[in-house]
């Protein structure tokens, strides 16, 4: 293990870029699990589905990020349907919803993963674009353009969603339903429709997240399991319900993983997210900015 300041600062820069990517990828979960309390362990699987659909669209000549944006409305509808189904089958019935809800999402994730294997095979897929493959030279450092693109999209996405939730009427209704559903009902709003809408947005965002995922690196069907660790780590570390916390938590994870990657190698990097998650759950389960 060669420890040098140069390597460390390179790891830090890469970590910040990676971290904001992780934040953007987790923000959908911040809404569906953090705010709406849905045990959505299939969130990464839906995102990976987005990656593969992005791949398909790029074979028609579309830019990957553009493909992600194009997929967003379709994924919004998908999210609404998933939530509706979940609500009708589980949340409404009350008893046992916890176990069965979890089993349902686990089953869904599994079906998506196997479905992708059947259609695309187990090999990795990647996309090409002008910004993939070349790097920006900044002094002594070389920063891959694709990371910068992901970084940019991530920042825009995170701020857009945070603004939406705090400034717009529906956005604030979503936050309200997370905090005090009975009060919301008394005001005449329908919590189910609000939650449905929120879940749709969270899933729509996942489409773009999936596009970023395949821009940043190749994807394979089994990646959703790894990302369960990363997304839940970010959401829990941020504190359930905190949007701004997501960015901070993402950065922490990104930097931590980057340093481990640099000094311990690629085989240990995936363990960082899960390890960090277990540590946070053990010593401060409410996260940094928890409700």
């Amino acid at each position, binding site marked *: 293990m060669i420890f040098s300041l140069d390597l460390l600062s390179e790891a830090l820069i890469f970590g910040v870029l990676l971290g904001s990517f992780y934040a953007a990828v987790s923000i959908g979960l911040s809404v569906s*699990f953090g705010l709406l309390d849905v*045990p959505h*362990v299939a969130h990464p699987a839906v995102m990976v589905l987005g990656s593969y659909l992005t791949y398909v669209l790029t074979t028609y000549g579309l830019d990957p990020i553009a493909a992600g944006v194009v997929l967003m409305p379709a994924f919004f509808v998908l999210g609404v349907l998933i939530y509706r*189904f979940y609500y009708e*089958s589980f949340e409404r019935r009350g*008893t*046992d919803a*916890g*176990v*069965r809800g*979890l*089993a*349902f999402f*686990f*089953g*869904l994730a*599994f*079906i998506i993963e*196997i*479905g992708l*294997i*059947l259609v695309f095979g187990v090999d990795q897929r990647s996309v090409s674009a002008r910004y993939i493959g070349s790097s920006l030279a900044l002094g002594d450092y070389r920063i891959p353009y694709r990371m910068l693109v992901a970084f940019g999209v991530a920042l825009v996405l995170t701020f857009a969603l945070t603004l939406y939730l705090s400034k717009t009427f529906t956005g604030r209704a979503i936050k309200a339903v997370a905090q005090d559903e009975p009060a919301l009902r008394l005001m005449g709003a329908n919590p189910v429709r609000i939650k449905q809408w929120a879940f749709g947005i969270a899933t729509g965002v996942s489409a773009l997240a999936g596009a970023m995922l395949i821009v940043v690196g190749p994807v394979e069907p*089994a990646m959703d*399991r*790894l990302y*369960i*660790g990363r997304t*839940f780590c970010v959401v*829990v570390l941020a504190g359930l319900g905190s949007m701004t916390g997501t960015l901070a938590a993402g950065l922490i994870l990104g930097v931590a993983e980057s340093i481990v990657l640099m000094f311990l190698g690629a*085989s*240990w990097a*995936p*363990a960082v997210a*899960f*390890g960090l*998650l*277990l540590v946070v*759950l*053990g010593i401060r*389960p409410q996260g940094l900015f928890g409700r």
Partner: protein
Amino acid sequence: MKYWITVAVVLIVAVVVALVPVNEYFFYAAFVVLQFVVLATAWNILGGYAGYVNFGTGAFFAIGAYSAVVLFKWLGAPLGVQILAAAGVSGLLGFGVGLLTLRLRGIFFAIATVAVTFMLETVMVNWRYVGGATGLQLLRPPVTEPFDSYTRMLFVVMALLALVAISVARYVQDSWIGRGLRAIRDSEEAAECSGVPTLKLKLFACTVSGALMGAAGAPMPMYLSFIEPASSFSLNYSVSALAMPMIGGTAHWIGPVIGALLLASIQQIVTVTISNEINVLVVGVLLVLFVVAAPDGVLGLFKRWLRSSR
């Protein structure tokens, strides 16, 4: 008493069958089915009785297998000792994961089991003593008399483990422990306020569940003369161990047995007639179907049919 007589009879039948000239394929298939009976029954002790979902059965299973390998390679331990050690290590793992996350909501325990699967697989892939990513070949000692082959002997061993698992599940279910677990599942807060030591009971169920899963894994290396991370930590174990009780019925120890017999048989048929990937997809689809439409599983459907035909 009737129960124990049945157990003894089943065991004797198993031994007799293993000594009789029957197609070897039967023992292979039966070994796999019995393995799933143990895994499903073990899963249900925590998942069905207490309501805490384990997504990482593969990890407990694999650690059992690897513990057996370590003990065999290091001390030349016989199979019985391997199984006990495997149960001990996996039980400890269950206790550790439980201690860390059973105080929290169910979803965090579930995710912790995914975490543990990931991390342990990484450790095994990097540990050269047990063969790392490429795996390890094992030189097996000669088969114990009076069995002809490892397949037959391990079939009997697995049958014994299945009976042990079912007996443990039955005991837990019918005892005051089972009542406490059910109270936890129905309403943990009310259980705590009714004097139930919720954390202790959950830890107990988690440890026992893990230990049985580890025991199920121990015969695998002897069975294959080989061990490697990819197949030991296979997602199929985790999904099946969850699907089988959910499909069979989680309220009673017979549910996971029904689920395992049903699903493992379907899996064998589909793998042979269609493909392995479709087989795995079928498990997932059936899981979702049952969880949504028949929450009490086959057992529940059967009870409803009984009531309506009366």
